[in-house]
Each structure stands twice: as C-alpha cells, then as structure tokens.
C-alpha cells in the first residue's frame, strides 16, 4: 500500500491544516466513495471465484462511474492477464490488483508533480480558464482567487465572459467576496479586448496572478473556439511565456463528452490542467481516469462544495484514497 503511506506522510507535514483538508475531501467524496468502493466490496463479497461473471460485474461498476468504455475494456483486459499470470482464483486477492491498476492508470508514466499550479515568481502569472456552459468556470475562479489571495498573492480577475447575461456581475460579486479587483467592460464587448485590458491593469498594479474568465462554449462551435484561440494569442503576445496555465473546467457529472471537451479545448488553447467541479454530488468523476489515460491531462483542482473554501488542490493520492478508503480500511 505504498501510495497510502505517502499520502499519510503528506498529511503529517502540516497537521492542523491538512486535517481540515482531509475531512473536507472525505466529506465531499463521501457519496462518491460509498457507492464506488461499496459496490466493489459488494462485488467481491458476492463472488468467491474470479470468473467471467466477476469481470462483467467489475466492468459495470467502472462504467457506471463514467470511467469510459475503452478505458474499462483496457483495464479489464490487463486485469485478466494479471490474474492469469499470478494465478489468482480468489476474488479477495484481486482487490489489490484492481486498486493498483487504477492508480497506475491515473499516473501512467508521469510523476505526480503535475498537480500544482505553474506560477511565476516575481512576475505576472496568467491563468486562462475555459470550458463548456455551466461547468462552473466563474465559481471556480472566485474560489481560486480567494485561495491565492489567502496565500498572499495579489490577484486580478478579467471578466472575459461578455456574452452570458449576468456573467460579469457574477464575477464581480466573487471578486468582492475574495477581495480582489475585477477588470471588466460592458456586456457584448470583445472578450480579447477585455483580456488585453486585464493584462495591462494587472501589470500596472504589479499583480502576481491574473485569472481570465471566458464565456462558456460548446466545443463543436468552431467560431467560438476560434475566438478562444484568439484570446490566447493576445495573452501570448502581451506576456511572453503566458498563459502559464490553461485550466479546463469540467463538470464531474459529465459523461463521455468530457473526453471530446478535453480534446477540442486542448487543440484550441493547449489546456494544461483540469478543474473538476461538483464532485460533492453522486457523480463518480471516473472520467478523470479516462482523460488522464487518453490525453495525459492532470487534474489540478476539485470543487467539493459551494463555499469559498470548497476548492481543493487535487491530490491524486487523496482522491484515490477517497475512492478506496473503505476497501483499504478493512484490511
């Protein structure tokens, strides 16, 4: 259980603070965890033998977690091989292999250092936030701004969603709550111009971080994706090396379309990480595995509630621990 120890160690570093984080994770992920690992436990209790039926049930558990058919198929194939290789007959023994494989799928060959934001020292860092309509971009930006501010950073927000009714006001309120400035123009103005303004203001205010909001758009709208690429070009032109992060905000309840979102938004804006929102519901967030598996995109943050503090830096170990906590604690 190597990853568990690592996770525990991480938490011992700063007990006060991390305890809070861990409870939050556990609370937020409670429903996810209960149903997911509960079902795997169920499955294992029901099946003594590892046979075709067992694998079919396992497939069901994973697919209903939105992991995605092709990832599940790959996983099941690998498991079958592993079971054969190790000559496992007992379903209890296969449990370890399952969790091992899932962790492996998430990490792939990568190191786990991809979770932190790439922020510059002594220089303006720009974060561009993109995603489909209703994913939770503006809310996530509000929470992120608050968090960065708490860390002592000077944060400026740019209200690049000039399309949706009330979007500018929404960001404005979040700015007020977080205590950071919001650069805005009127509804209907050119988003690239707003972002340009934002960069200028952030520079003149000596800000550490500029977070750029954009309007939600469905990834198959070619014109809107072009508009987004233009916004990114403006950022690139104004600040060499920027944007330092392009965060794709993804609703955890989304099914297989999330893959298409990740692909297309990456093509247009070179996404560097994912913010997985609304993970406090019953959605399993399994799509994270598929996206990581197929596109190598790391999750950087998860949204676990509606409060300002409810955005957590993604900790893959905690996440996996959350999914499997019940299973592991049993041992």
């Amino acid at each position, binding site marked *: 259980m190597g990853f568990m120890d690592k996770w525990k160690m991480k938490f011992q570093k700063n007990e006060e603070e991390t305890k809070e984080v861990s409870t939050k994770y556990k609370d937020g992920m409670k*429903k996810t965890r209960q149903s997911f690992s509960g079902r795997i436990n169920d499955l294992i209790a029901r099946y003594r033998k590892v046979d075709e039926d067992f694998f079919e049930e396992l497939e*069901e558990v994973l*697919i*209903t*977690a*939105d992991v*995605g*058919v*092709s990832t599940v198929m790959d996983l099941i194939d690998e498991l079958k091989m592993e079971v054969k290789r190790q000559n496992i007959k007992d379903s209890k023994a296969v449990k370890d292999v399952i969790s091992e494989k899932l962790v492996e799928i998430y990490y792939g060959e990568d190191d786990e250092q991809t979770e932190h934001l790439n922020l510059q020292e002594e220089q303006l860092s720009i974060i561009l936030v993109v995603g*489909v*309509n*209703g*994913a*939770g971009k503006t*809310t996530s930006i*509000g929470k992120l701004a608050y968090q960065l501010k708490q860390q002592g950073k000077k944060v400026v927000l740019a209200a690049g969603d000039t*399309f*949706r*009714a*009330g*979007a500018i*006001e*929404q960001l*404005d*309120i*979040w700015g007020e*709550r977080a205590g950071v400035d919001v650069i805005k123009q009127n*509804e209907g103005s050119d988003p690239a111009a707003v972002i340009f303004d934002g960069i200028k203001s952030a520079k003149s205010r000596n800000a550490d971080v500029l977070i750029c909001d954009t309007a939600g758009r*469905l*990834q*198959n*709208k*070619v014109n809107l994706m072009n508009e987004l690429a233009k916004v990114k070009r403006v950022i690139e032109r104004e600040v060499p090396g920027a944007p330092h992060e392009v965060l794709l905000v993804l*609703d955890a*309840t*989304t*099914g*297989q*379309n*999330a*893959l*298409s979102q990740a692909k297309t938004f990456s093509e247009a804006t070179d996404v560097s990480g994912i913010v997985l929102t*609304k993970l*406090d*519901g*019953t*959605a*399993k967030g399994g*799509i994270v595995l598929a996206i990581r598996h197929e596109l190598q995109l790391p999750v950087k943050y998860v949204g676990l509630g*509606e409060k300002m503090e409810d955005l957590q830096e993604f900790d893959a170990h905690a996440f996996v621990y959350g999914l499997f906590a019940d299973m592991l604690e049993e041992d």
Partner: protein
Amino acid sequence: MAFEGLADRLQSTIKKITGKGKVSEQDVKEMTREVRLALLEADVNYKVVKDLIKRIKERAVGQEVMESLTPGQQVIKVVKEELTALMGGEQSKIAVADKAPTVIMMTGLQGAGKTTTTGKLANLLRKKHNRSPLLVACDIYRPAAIQQLETLGKQLDLPVFSMGTDANPVDIAQKAIEKAKEEHHDYVIIDTAGRLHVDSELMQELEEIKSVVKPDEIYLVVDSMTGQDAVNVAESFNEQLDITGVVLTKLDGDTRGGAALSIKAVTDKPIKFAGMGEKLDQLEAFHPDRMASRILGMGDVLSLIEKAQTNVDEKQAKELEEKMKNMSFTFDDFLEQMGQVKKMGPLDDLMSMIPGANKMKGLKNAQIDEKQISHVEAIIQSMTKNERQDPSLMNASRKKRIAKGSGTSVSQVNRLLKQFEEMKKMMKQMTNMQKGKKGKGMKFPFM
C-alpha cells in the same frame, strides 16, 4: 474510439455475418455486443442498456430478414424501433391551468441551464402561444443569478419578479403568484437555484415552493452531456417533486445524449423541449425519433437507406444519370436534385449518416449552412427557362437581374455558375469512371 459512429464499427460485423433468410442467434450476439458498446459510449445508463439489449435479443432472433436488408441491418432496425419506443412520442405541450395563472417551476442541478431555459420558455410562450408570462427569480444563492434573469427579461421585454437575495425563495414564489394575478399574467415561470439532488435541505425548499404555488408543470432541466449519474439525478428529483417533464439542454453540442434515454427509462416522464443554442429563440420541441438515431451513433446507415429509398424516385435517378452521361445536366436538374436531397432531412443529419463522413478532414468541422442552399435555390429560380437550360447565355445584365431577383449579389451568382461548371466536369469524370465498372448506375449522384 469514442467518436466513431456505431455504423463504422458495425460494418465490419455486418460483413462477417453472411445471413441467409433468418437472423440467427449468433448474428444477434455479435450485433448486440456492438450496440451495447455504442449505447454505453453514448452515456446511456448501464442498467438501461442491459434491459434494452435483453429485449432486443428476444425480438431479433428468428426474425425474417427483409429483402433489401442484411441480417445486420435487420438487427439495427429492431434496435432503432426499440429505442424509439422507449423514447416515446413527441410531447411538447405545456399545461394550461383551469384558472390563470399557469405555474411552471424550473428545477435542476447547478449549471444545467435553468435560467437560460426560463428565458427561452418565456419567449416561446409569448411568441408561439401568445401568452404573457411573468418570470420569477428564486435563485438567491448563486451570485448574480437574479441579474441574469433580469437581463434576460430586459432582452425579451418581459417582466421579472424578484425580491433580492435576502428574501426566502418560498415567499418570493408566493408573492410572485399574487402579483401575476393582479397584473393578469397567464403564466408564471419560477427559476429556482441549482442544487444537488442529495442536498436534503435545498430539496426540501423545492418541496415547500411546490406546496405553496401548486405548479401545473415542474420541469427538470438536464444537461444533455450528463453521464451515468443522470439516472440518480432524475430519480431523486422525480421522487421528491413528481416532475411533469424534462428539458434537455446544450443539445447543439456533439454529445450523443444517452442521458435522454436513461432519464426517460427511470422516470417515464416526457422530455418536452431541447435547448439548441445560446440564443433565446433556440428552444425546440424534443424529437424522440431523432434522438434515437443520434444516440445510436453518427453513421446510421440504415436510416440513410430508408430515407433514400422513400425519397429518391428510381426513375428520376435513372433519367438524371442519363443526363449526366450526356452532359445535358441543366440548372433545372440541379434544382430538382437539391429538392430531393432536402426532402431527406436536414443536411447536417444527412452528412452525419454517411459512414466515415465525420472522419473526413474537410467535412468534420464543415457546418453546412442551409441558408446557402436556399440562396442557391433562389438564384436558380430567378433565372429564365432558357438560362437554366443554357448557362452560356449569361452576361452581365442577366447576372445583375438574377442577383436582384434572388436577393443575392452578382458575385454569388458568379460563384454558383462556376461551381455548376465544375460540377458538370466532375460528373463527367465520375460517369467515365463508372463505365469501366459493372455499368451499375449511381444511386446517389449528390454524394
């Protein structure tokens, strides 16, 4: 893998199956495996898929294969029928209360599109049904949700009732009804805050609003991109509120929308409307049959076959082919041909039904503009009989007249003429190519 249509994958399976007269159990087994994968990839809930596949197997085995179809296609036909049956018929009627106002409550998860849909629904009620709706802002939680609804109200020039963020949503709803009565609004649409179906406190609030305003309709607004969890969400909202219908949003995206099937299966409530864009007039009646095709995958060969058979008159096609060979293809023929293609349904749909079309580079992002087609039609219709037969008659003043008559520009007319000539050349090449082969005629000259 996720974006290959079912048809693409099925084709290899279909090839393998060398059916005689009946669909064998083995045929069905191979086919249903593919169908199952396609449905799961489309986000149809696992359990729903299981039940469906079971029914399909029972029905398909032993069926007589229709003359024109292969056993594979026959199975797909059964699949489509089952899907369509499960989706139910079209039901986009909005209730009318015996005593005005009729009250509609909008509910759903965060970010599903409730507020936008509230605006669209109000627009629909006024424009199509000539009603006078009052919009009610009960979302006191999300920052600027009230402003959003107020902005929409302004855009639509419709009144919005709000009491700010300090009032209780239940009180707001109640006062709104009183106000609607006073001001003789015949519809009240209540926009509620997005909430998780497992948030008992907020779900309780919805129940209270419901018991106070006694709505005639309770719509659950669901994002069409929702995955397996759609079942849990729909089940919870339906159990606690007894919803009357569903609005599926963001269906203009490229999601297959399997959630639609899941929701229908677990709630048995009709999906009434579909959100098809960000503009306020983009709320459409929901078409279950189209949804069935969409869920099944982009390359629905069978329905293309069906559509082609019913719409392309064999004789006309033969004549056209003759003309192509003789290079006597005229603008009249072109017009007729376009009419035939158009009869087959929206062009986007048609393109997506051609297997592999979604993989062709140029076609993938091609957004076919139906408007352009009507421009072309208008241009041709503005030509005289002689001009249609003999494009070489065209000169500057004729072009000017045609442009004026069709409401287009001379450059558009020029473009069409050029395209037409190119097309004729291409047709010649194609027919020459065909002569080498069995001499079998082309079925779809437009492809």
